[in-house]
């Protein structure tokens, strides 16, 4: 068990504020956050590469503060493809094993096995700079898992790969990470889909703080705050200002039809979260197309509505012109309600 207790740092670029979390062995934790949210900084303090200004970091109840990096039984995969340029691929992977005291032959065999696992059998005598980006990252991953470290840290390992390679490697991750099944795996990413797909648990970070932590599906279904809602969905949840008046949900002065089971208590201004798939073509809401883009087999349409801007996700390819006027409808059953301060106040009547 790795525990973070009220950890703060004074890192110049992105100070971390009061982080607390308990991470259990055998689980994959994904850290989701935008660039600059503090994900790398969090991994670096766990690694011991940056200092902690305040708080405690404990592994199985032992304080890690004074333990040097090399004794932390951790391994790391950087976003940049970091390998040792002067060593061959197999020497790269055997390097940590040799430092752990394995014999040359033993280390070599284990390294070869790890290379086979990441699909680099036959490349063992190449030098890393001769390999493609994807292959270089596979070497780094092999080197990270071959150690069977207590904690495996991966800092946006797919970020610098092109789309195809990213998809392929991501599909392999569950199999590769199974090698480290007894360890704690911390995996940071900027992509909600990746975080939810890979993680047993998800940690949502924003501006140096942990906003939410828990099962990915729970966080997705029931985001604690507006920020979390925006972060865990791609395309993001659109946030519009509305109000509750006389038990009715008003958007831009118009009352929405009685939604499926939303509890509407107390009058006053609120924020309404609209999931991208809650909007669909056809209906009585006038909207103007600001921009339409294709993402895989989906179409993402940025709309300007009477009550503000919102994003609509349509399956399939749809052609829109900029400034085209269309009619849309809103499925109120998946709306999220937040207080004016941004706290989730969505309540649904059980069973409608």
């Amino acid at each position, binding site marked *: 068990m790795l525990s973070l207790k009220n950890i703060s740092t004074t890192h110049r670029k992105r100070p971390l504020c009061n982080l607390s979390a308990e991470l259990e062995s055998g689980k994959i934790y994904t850290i989701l956050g935008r660039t600059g949210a503090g994900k790398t900084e969090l991994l670096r303090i766990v*690694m011991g*590469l940056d200092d902690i200004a305040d708080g405690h970091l404990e592994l199985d109840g032992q304080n890690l503060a004074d333990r*040097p*990096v*090399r004794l*932390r039984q*951790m*391994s*790391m995969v*950087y976003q*940049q493809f*970091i390998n*040792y*340029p*002067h060593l061959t691929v197999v020497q790269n992977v055997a*390097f*940590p094993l040799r*430092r*752990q005291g394995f014999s040359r032959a033993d280390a070599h065999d284990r390294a070869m096995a790890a290379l086979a696992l990441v699909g680099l059998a036959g490349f063992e005598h190449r030098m890393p700079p001769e390999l493609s980006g994807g292959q270089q990252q596979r070497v780094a991953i092999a*080197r990270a898992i071959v*150690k069977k470290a207590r904690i495996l840290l991966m800092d946006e390992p797919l970020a610098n790969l092109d789309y195809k390679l990213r998809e392929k490697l991501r599909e392999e991750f569950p199999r590769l990470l199974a090698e480290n099944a007894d360890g704690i795996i911390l995996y940071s990413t900027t992509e909600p889909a990746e975080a939810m797909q890979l993680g047993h648990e998800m940690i949502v970070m924003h501006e140096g703080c942990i906003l939410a932590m828990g099962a990915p599906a729970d966080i997705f279904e029931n985001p604690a705050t507006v920020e979390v809602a925006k972060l865990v969905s791609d395309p993001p949840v659109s946030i519009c200002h509305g109000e509750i008046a006389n038990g009715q949900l008003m958007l831009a002065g118009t009352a929405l039809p009685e939604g499926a089971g939303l509890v509407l208590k107390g009058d006053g201004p609120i924020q309404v979260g609209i999931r991208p798939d809650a909007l669909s073509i056809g209906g009585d809401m006038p909207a103007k197309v600001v921009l339409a883009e294709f993402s895989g087999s989906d179409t993402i349409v940025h709309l300007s509505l009477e009550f503000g801007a919102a994003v609509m996700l349509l399956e399939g390819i749809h052609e829109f012109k900029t400034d085209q006027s269309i009619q849309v409808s809103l499925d109120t059953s998946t709306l999220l309600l937040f207080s004016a301060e941004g706290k989730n106040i969505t309540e649904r009547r059980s069973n409608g």
Partner: protein
Amino acid sequence: MGRTYHIIKYLCLLVWTAFVVFPFLWALSTSFKDANAVTSGARYLPWVEFEPSVQGWTSLFASGSQGINIVTPFLNSASVTLLASIVSLGLGTLAAYGLSRYSYKVGFVKNSDITFFFISQRIMPPIVLAIPFFLMLKEIQALDTIFGLVIVYVALLLPIAVWVMTDFFASIPKELDEMAMIDGCTPIGAFFRVVLPNSTAGLVVAGMFCLIFGWNDFFFAFILTFTETQLLPVAIVSLNSSVTPWWSLSAFALISVTPLALIAIVVERFMSRGSLAGAFR
């Protein structure tokens, strides 16, 4: 304009080339002259304008009062330069690595100030330190010894090594050494096992500059040695002031500048690859 431009360009390059190689060719020609060929005015082409003689070259290796001994000064120069370069490169590389990876703070003194302290030694005119060095070496009985010169040359070359290597290490991602530590190296182990093996380019450049500035120094060798540990530049200057014939002087000069001139080939390769640029920002 293409063609005329090219012709003019090559002409200019050839003129400069002529200027660059002229003293070498002149020295080469002179080294094969005898008294007759020298005193009858400027002569250039052997066989055509004068009858070549090898006495300029043989005199350098001849023994006795006739001979000029070049072997001892050559070996002295080589030992001092190599020893001082190795020490400077070793210490300088360690310091440069420290400065590029750790932050030091003593009072108001920070990394940049320490780097400046190193590099600023190049500003110091040799004359400022000459007399104290003289007295200091006299005190430890290291005047006119290789050991004494090496000490002084380390002070001369260390700034160069620190300067080149600091810039070089800045170009090596720090993630590389972090990775080594994560993989089980101590910080010092990470440096020796991972950073150093990937630093050959920087070490070669820094080493070359140490050799150049060490081999070519005259002033300190001139002041701090007398007869026992004469280096090449001092030897030739003392020959120059006596009645040494031009042919011997020329041969002597050519022998003493050739080893370093060959380094130009290595420097050119690094320069063309662009791996020198980082060193000079």
